[in-house]
């Protein structure tokens, strides 16, 4: 898991540097928060700026000693690690226009495939997920789910 020690050390340092930059940006933005009055002596700026200072300090410590960290995925795992969030994003964006059933089908069929199901299995699983979860949420638990513009158009005709 810790194949290339030099590389993981470098990754740890990149992470620490990113945290440091984030702390600077957060502190800078915090020091510019606009307000007209404050009923307490500290005001809305002090706490965020103090946190930024703490984080910057911790980031420096972390940079000096990055400690353990894991190797980043490669090959098929990397593709999967990108595909999973992409499928969730697709599902979120499809919810409005295409509706719950289609959006869930796309996400579950796709992610089943990512986790090694064959295409036929993944498609059957996707259909079962879409219908099953719909029955559970919309019918049994009465959660409001989007039916989708597409479906509404079909019903109107």
């Amino acid at each position, binding site marked *: 898991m810790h194949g290339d020690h030099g590389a993981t050390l470098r990754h*740890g340092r990149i*992470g620490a540097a990113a*945290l440091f930059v984030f702390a600077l940006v957060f502190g800078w*933005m*915090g020091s510019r*928060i*606009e*307000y*007209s009055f*404050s*009923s*307490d*002596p*500290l005001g*809305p700026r002090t*706490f*965020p700026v103090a*946190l*930024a200072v*703490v*984080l910057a300090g*911790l*980031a420096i*410590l*972390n940079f000096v*000693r990055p*400690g*353990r*960290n*894991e190797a*980043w*995925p490669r090959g098929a795992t990397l593709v*999967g*690690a990108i595909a*999973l*969030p992409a*499928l*969730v994003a697709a*599902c*979120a964006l499809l*919810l409005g226009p295409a509706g719950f059933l289609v*959006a869930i089908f796309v*996400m*579950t069929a796709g*992610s*089943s*495939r*990512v*986790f*090694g199901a064959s295409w036929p*299995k*993944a498609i059957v*699983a*996707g259909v079962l997920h879409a219908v099953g*979860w719909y029955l559970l*949420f919309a019918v049994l*638990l009465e*959660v*409001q*789910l989007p039916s989708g513009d597409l479906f509404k158009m079909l019903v109107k005709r």
Partner: protein
Amino acid sequence: MNLDYLWHGFAVALTPTNLLIGFVGAFLGTLIGALPAIGPINGIALLLPIAYTMGLPPESTMILLAGIYCGAEYGGRISSILLNVPGDAGAVMTALDGHPLAKQGRAGEALAISGLASFFGGTVGTIGLALFAPALAALAIGFGPAEYFVLMVFAFATLGSMVGSDPVKTLVGCTLGLMLATVGLDPTSGAYRYTFDEPELGDGIEFVVLVIGLFSISEAINILEHQSKGGEILKVAGRSLARLDDIRRCVWTAVRSSVIGFVVGVLPGTGASVASAISYMTEKRLNDRDGTFGKGDVRGLAAPEAANNATAAGAFVPMLTLGVPGSGTTAVMLGALMLYNIQPGPQLLTERPEIVGGLVASMFIGNLILLALNLPMVKIFARVLTLPNWILVPSILVLSVVGVYSTHSSVLSVLIMLGIGVVGWMLRKLDFEMAPIILGFVLGKVMEVNLRNALAISGGELSILWSSTISQVLWVMALTVAVAPWFLARRMKRLRAVEAKAESAGLPED
């Protein structure tokens, strides 16, 4: 001692609806615990928004989530024993003696012993919770804003020194959580902080969005990376009743481990993984005369199971009485109460006794239900070990999307959840844990408000932060836990090694 709240609580917990909800929680919790890939915190994160959208009252939501939490501590042992892969971080030590027992063909006995130990630990922990909570609440009622601020400092000091493999990384997590909590409208000055003129961020980052991002999206990618290499699942073989002899040998082990578990649970931030490791090492030191520990000694099995169930109950003490969660999972539950606009603290017990009492009572009942479920039905729960990831993970994703979407009806919040999840996963790759972020987030507003109120009282004089006896005691405690690791370096190293082992196996946190 006034235990009226508890009797009232039994009336709440014993209504048919809440009994059913408690049963569902216990059942789902055992399943979630038994699944090697997800733990109590993931289960609670996934089911919280659904409970909330269904319009369950806060006490029923708490009963459901507590059922899942306790159930998962029972369920975690099943995969430890049968598969040698712990179901969650609290069950790592259970595998040490549980799996060897199963290999000797005594899986049924091992499950029975550990089920009884879980019941014992859970019940002792809940008794401790019932007795200790009113006492601590009474003590904390005298806390002013300054004392509260120092209490938070103490909580983070404990967290930094006890949790995770690297204190710096744990504290980075806390700080990130505190930072996320500053987003939104500042009530005292009316200033918008870090909202980027986005109206949806005016109320701050939604708790559900953060929790689901950190504990289910990042977990899904994590599962993909740590797909199990097809370990052999042992059959539930042999007699499925525990031998009376073994039970007798375990009694004192269970007593000691339950007490250790409860105490560790009460400490802010430290969860079941620490408790089960300490209790296992204690029993090994006391009892391992013939070198049987690690080769299938029933006491090595009973110790971590009694401890991790007692911890789950103990973790509720600071969360319900001080508003400072005792573990990552109780941090999520505290966030759940905040969804209902309830801020736990010493007043909760007097103002909303039905919540505290209902929760504690439901844990007594829940432990009985869990024992009844777990002894005869263990074979059914063991079946989920064979559930393939290509069915499990898409289901997690559906629950995440529906959970976030249904609480806010907004696609943007699903996308923010996704972004948080991906960043969370990257942090995990760099060996940062997610639980400190949640703890920082739920404590952030309280910590800032109390600091500002304290300084408003003193007119900006910082000395108010250490002027009272209570705050002085808390400062000393905070310094002690911060310095303790250097004195206990060797023992801490062993503890950390255990945690590191749990982490490198990609196990969910507790």
